[in-house]
Each structure stands twice: as structure tokens, then as C-alpha cells.
């Protein structure tokens, strides 16, 4: 947080500067800003966007119910409610107490939730894309609208990983780079679809909780395992139905007759030869180039990875061969002719079931977007007069950190560096400032005694009912949103 917004000008007290949008209007007492959405009422900015409340009674998180105090039935109270920071408003730097410091009964204990919208210059997203398709080499630059916004990081089991944002892209590069990065993060965090392109790789449309679309092709399934693992899982089901099975995979291509899983079943040799680098028996690396074909390779004809069949090692006319990808999406069946050349044949019904079983065992391919940020610096002084005590309280797990009501994983080590799944937050939970930086909702929940002990603004703590009734610094309207639970998906 190095880039400071301009210091508020000295004005007559009845004029307030609204920080709701980049125009940053001064609004006179009793007047509305240029947008007709924010007003100065009694010396404070009233916003029409209501404070968001997670109403645990609304199931599944699919209904957003705006309501005003007038038609509020009064039943939203007690532990059903968790005030989130979406719409809480923020001040930067955080020299005054966070807009809402909520005193809330939790399991009989007197808890305090400090609600603020934190401005993160140090933030980004980690994206997990469930696909075997090659998105680009590790370390390759990822671009949005032509600007560098991040990079490809180490691939994980069945997934490609991207790391986007971070302070270097937000504020360290050119102005357009910062703006596009901020915009890309904002859209991803608000669960919008964003098109990213990888230098020397693919173009991918990423949307949290949705399947990735790689070079225009929607990914349906996540692979069941690598080629070798697939052999291990299904070898016994193929036995007796086919003479040889090759599971094509960019990482580890498996061959059942050579693989340990085949050996323990007494699978006979077939004289097959795989082009590529043999790792251990029946496991081959680099059978082809990475690409958008079979099993994340560039292969469209699987026979291209096979060498000459060796009759001395068991190859014979009539030998049957199944080739299949790690998702079961691609498969082919062959028999060797008299010259030991594979000839395509229709897949026998009995084998079709095993191919379908591979597909059936694949989970739906999704994009996961984890917001990652560091809640350091001045933010903490909005919560407590002694900032480092908050850090320690979080590290000691006495203070629970949530982002828009979603649980946050706090990294061990110094600072409050957290990650949270954006699909578990209310809609449009994130905003931005022109700095550029991301505004994320952030809540600290801790026992009131602990809050007092770490020097919190205890005199500012208010009950949930009181906030719903009277609002905070930014107006009294609230909206209720069902809490978004884990894996319910879109």
C-alpha cells in the first residue's frame, strides 16, 4: 500500500467527499452526488447499495433478497445472522475504526466481529484449472487484454495452476498493466468469466465454479488419474477382454502388459513399443508434445506414439489393442493384421463399459479462484489500537478471519496473508479503487474479552440488531443473502 490517494481537501464541514466511485464528488448537506446513488444526509454519506447480511435461513445461497427496514419482518436476528463486510464501506488509510464493529452472541460467548472492506494492493488470485490440456509452459506470462497479469505456475494433479495479480503487476508495471490486472482480479473474484491467454500456449476462459474453456473448447471432465494410475485402477477389468491397453497421457503414459498392475495379474507380453522416455516398466514420459489432443498431448492419431511391434516378444496377427485417454473422452480399438500393423475396429461392447467407467470416475472439470491477499499495515489499526496484537491473535487462532463470510486460510508465518474461495462469498463482494487495488470484504471475529485485551475499539462495538436497525457510517439499508456453502457449485 504505497500509493496514497490525494489527501481530502479542507472544505466547509457540511460538504463530504464521497469515495464510492472514481469521480469522488464532494456532496453538500442534503444533496445527492452526481450518480443519484449516494447522498449526504446529516453529514454522512448514505449509500443505496445495502449492507449485506448473510441470512443463514435462506438455503443454498441462491436467493438475494433486498429489503428495507420498512418491510423487514424482524425475525432476522441472533445467530442466523453474520454481518459481512460487503457494502460496509471503507476508509483509506484506515485511521478511523472499521465501519462496523459488531458485537454478536456466538455459542453463548460474547463475540465481536470487525467488519471492513479492506483495500489490498498486495493481492491476487490463485487459479486451479481442472484440465490436462496444455495451457502453456511453467513460468509463461499470462495476459488479459494483451497486458501481463500473472504467470503459469507448477501444475498439480489433473489441474493447471495460474497465479495472477500481485503488487508488481498492480503497481509495479505500466498504467494499463495495473488497470487491466486490477480489473481482471476484480472480475475473477466476482465470479465473472475472464479470457486469459498464455504466451506460447492456449487461450482459456476462466470463471470460478465453471468448467474452463480452452481454445474455445469446454472442458467437461477432470482426468481420473495419470495414465499409469489409470492402468492401476482398471487393469483387472480389462483382463480377458483385450490383449493390450495403452492409456495416453502427456505426463505418464501407461501400458498394461508392462505395468506392475498387469504383471501381478500375469498379463502376457505383447511386443508393443512406445516412443518416448521409459520411466519404470509400463510408464512412459514425453510420448508426444503437450497440446490439446489426447490426454493433454498434441496427439490426434494415437498410433503415432507406437513403434514397430516385436513378434519375438509376443506380437501376433489378431492381437487386440485398446488405446484410451485419461478421461475416457478419446478411445480407439485395433487388431494387428498379418503384417503386425494395427487396423482400426469397432470397440467391443464389453470394453465400452470399461471406457465409460473411466469417464464416469472423472469429476467435472472446474475453475477454482482463490483470492489471496495480505491484510497488513494500516488496515489492522481500524480494528485495534495495537495492530500487531491482532496479527498474533489471528496466528494463535483466537481471531477468526473471513472474507465476505467465507472461511479464509491464513498462512503460517508473519503477517495476515490469507486465501479464500470466491464461490463462497455473496455476489459482487469485491470492488476496486483507482490506486489500483482490490477492495475485499474482510471480517475478524473474536471473543469480546480477547478484543478488549488486544486494545480493540470496544466502545465502538454494536449489536447485530443495532446495526440492522440503525445502519453504520454508510447508511441503514441492508440486504439479506443466503450463506454460500462449500461445494454447492453455481
Amino acid at each position: 500500500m504505497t500509493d496514497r490517494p490525494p489527501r481530502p481537501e479542507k472544505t466547509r464541514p457540511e460538504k463530504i467527499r464521497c469515495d464510492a466511485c472514481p469521480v469522488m464528488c464532494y456532496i453538500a448537506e442534503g444533496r445527492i452526488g452526481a450518480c443519484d446513488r449516494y447522498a449526504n444526509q446529516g453529514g454522512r454519506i448514505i449509500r443505496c447499495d445495502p449492507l449485506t447480511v448473510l441470512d443463514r435461513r435462506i438455503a443454498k445461497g441462491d436467493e438475494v433478497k433486498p429489503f428495507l427496514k420498512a418491510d423487514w419482518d424482524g425475525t432476522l436476528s441472533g445467530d442466523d445472522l453474520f454481518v459481512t463486510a460487503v457494502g460496509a464501506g471503507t476508509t483509506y488509510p484506515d485511521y478511523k475504526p472499521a465501519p462496523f464493529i459488531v458485537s454478536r452472541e456466538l455459542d453463548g460467548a460474547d463475540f465481536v466481529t470487525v467488519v471492513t472492506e479492506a483495500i489490498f494492493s498486495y493481492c491476487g488470485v490463485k487459479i486451479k484449472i481442472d484440465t490436462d490440456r496444455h495451457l502453456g509452459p511453467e513460468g509463461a506470462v499470462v495476459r488479459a487484454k494483451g497486458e501481463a497479469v500473472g504467470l503459469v505456475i507448477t501444475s498439480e494433479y489433473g489441474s493447471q495452476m495460474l497465479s495472477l495479480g500481485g503488487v508488481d503487476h498492480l503497481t509495479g508495471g505500466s498504467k494499463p498493466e495495473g488497470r487491466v490486472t486490477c480489473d481482471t482480479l476484480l472480475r475473477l473474484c466476482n465470479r465473472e468469466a475472464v479470457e486469459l491467454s498464455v504466451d506460447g500456449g492456449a487461450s482459456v476462459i476462466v470463471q470460478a465454479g465453471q468448467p474452463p474453456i480452452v481454445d474455445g473448447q469446454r472442458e467437461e471432465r477432470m482426468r481420473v488419474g495419470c495414465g499409469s494410475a489409470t492402468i492401476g485402477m482398471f487393469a483387472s477389468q480389462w483382463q480377458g477382454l483385450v490383449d493390450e491397453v495403452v492409456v495416453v497421457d502427456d505426463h505418464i503414459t501407461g501400458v498394461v502388459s508392462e505395468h506392475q498392475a498387469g504383471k501381478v495379474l500375469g498379463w502376457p507380453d505383447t511386443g508393443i513399443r512406445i516412443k518416448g522416455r521409459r520411466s519404470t516398466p509400463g510408464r512412459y514420459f514425453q510420448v508426444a508434445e503437450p497440446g490439446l489432443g489426447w490426454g493433454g498431448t498434441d496427439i490426434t492419431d494415437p498410433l503415432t506414439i507406437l513403434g514397430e511391434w516385436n513378434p519375438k516378444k509376443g506380437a501376433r496377427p489378431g492381437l487386440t489393442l485398446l488405446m484410451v485417454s485419461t478421461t475416457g473422452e478419446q478411445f480407439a480399438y485395433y487388431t494387428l493384421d498379418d503384417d503386425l500393423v494395427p487396423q482400426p475396429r469397432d470397440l467391443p461392447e464389453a470394453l465400452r463399459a470399461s471406457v465409460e467407467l473411466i469417464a464416469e470416475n472423472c469429476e467435472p472439470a472446474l475453475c477454482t479462484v482463490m483470492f489471496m491477499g495480505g491484510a497488513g499495515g494500516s488496515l489492522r489499526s481500524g480494528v485495534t489500537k495495537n495492530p500487531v496484537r491482532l496479527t498474533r491473535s489471528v496466528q494463535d487462532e483466537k481471531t477468526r478471519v473471513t472474507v465476505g463470510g467465507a472461511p479464509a486460510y491464513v498462512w503460517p508465518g508473519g503477517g495476515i496473508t490469507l486465501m479464500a474461495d470466491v464461490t463462497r462469498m455473496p455476489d459482487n463482494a469485491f470492488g476496486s479503487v483507482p490506486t489500483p487495488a482490490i477492495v475485499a470484504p474482510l471480517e475478524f471475529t473474536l471473543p469480546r474479552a480477547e478484543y478488549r485485551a488486544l486494545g480493540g475499539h470496544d466502545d465502538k462495538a454494536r449489536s447485530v440488531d443495532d446495526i440492522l436497525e440503525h445502519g453504520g457510517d454508510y447508511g441503514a439499508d441492508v440486504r439479506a443473502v443466503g450463506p454460500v456453502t462449500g461445494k454447492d457449485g453455481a
Partner: protein
Amino acid sequence: MTGPQIAFLPDRRRLHLQHGPIDLIIDAEGLGRDAALRAAAARFDSVLEELVAELPLLRAPTGPRPEGEIARHMHAATLPFRPAFITPMAAVAGAVADSVLSAMTGAGALTRAYVNNGGDIALHLAPGESFTAAIAGGTPGRATIGADSPTRGIATSGRHGRSHSLGIADSVTVLAATAAQADAAATMIANAVDLPGNPKITRTPARDLSPDSDLGDRLVTVDLAPLIGAEIDTALAGGLALAETCRARGLIHAALLTLSGQTRTLGAPDLIASKEPTHA
């Protein structure tokens, strides 16, 4: 801080784009509709930030040329009115509409399309198509613009609009080649419908209403006592004279001025026709 918000209106057809003080309603017909709507959303993304980046210059009297695409369009549309007091902000709504429309027409083949920025409208018409706009204001009216007309922009200004007026016109609607030109001219013509020194008009420094108004300490109309016929005639004549000058200079095609139930029109009578009240 809230970013741009984009959503379909309940009719699932017109798209509403909002960011801060900008509210656009857009629609497009033709094969390129989807591409055009997407292009509009993409263009809209940075509109407010581009403007805010040069806001002090845009709020100052039109003079030095700004940098941004929309800002330059605002500058060009307001420049012809100098040396009278005008700032590029007089054309901001129209210029934004023009810019978003231009992104839309560049993205796909459209038969008809419009960008309505709070009543300031940029139009696209393929040959043979036409567009009918209902005109708000003291007298209900209607403007039908055909593809063969040179008009592609409509704007309305007056003291009931969102921005403050130096004049007393209930509304001034202008048809021009672009929405930005129409916007600037409507603002200036509405300012010219005035009765200087008349005690029936209550005025307040703009800055007291909106602390960062581009009008500064200039007096804007906040209230008007009932006028007599001669006063209405005099005030409308002032506006009409400026409208005629604008038309003679090729800045506008037509104008409709209303004040206290009276109307003056300028330009092709078929472009703006007052609609008779209908009775059931």
C-alpha cells in the same frame, strides 16, 4: 469503490450499464447484436476512469485539448461555442453515448442500435431503418429519424434534468449529427432561454448545490414563479435565436424548445412534430 455494473433490464433485451454517475440503456438489432452488446460492455469498462483521469481539465472552460478519446470528442463538440462560457462537461453524456455506440457498430452488423445516456441518445440506422423517440418536457413530442436523415444524435437539456441549467427552459431537445454535438447545443440553447434580472427566477451558485460543479459560482436556476405570456415569448426567443445560429453554422439539424407550456420548433417540421394529446 464500486466498479461498472452491467445487467439486462427485466425485458431481457435492453442492457443497463452503470458506473458512478453514468447510466446507459442500450439496444441493438441485427446479426451482430451479441457481439455489439459485448463490445459495449467492454468499452464501458474504462469510460468513467478515462473521464476521471482528466476531470479538472474537463470541468474548466473549453480550451486546452484533453487526451482521452471521449474527452477529445467533448472538447470538439463544445469548442464551436467559444468564446461563450462552456466546458467540455456540457457534452459528456452525448460523448459517452457516441463512444459506446461506435464500439458497438464496430463489432458487428446492426440494423438499428441506440445508446441512451440519461436522455442523450446516439443512434445507428442501416439504410431503410428509422427511429422514433418520444420527447419529454413541457409538451409531449415525438422525433422520427430516418436513415436518410443526417441526424445520429439526440439530446435534451433543461432545468428539470440531472445537471443544473443557467436558463429557465423546461426542456430543449436538439437533433444533431452526433450525440455530443446535440448535448452541447441543447445545454447552450437551454441556458439562452432566460430572463436576466427577472425577480421571478430564483438562482443559487452552482457550487452551493454541487461543490465540484463545472459551473463554479455561476447562478443556476432553482425555482421559477409563474410567467406571463410576454415573458415566455421573450425567453423562448432568446433560445430560438441561438438555435438558429447553431443551425446556420451546421452544428445542429433541429431543435424543440419548451417553457411553461409553450413550444418553439426549428428545423424540418417532419423531424419534430408535436403530438396532439389523445383522448380515449
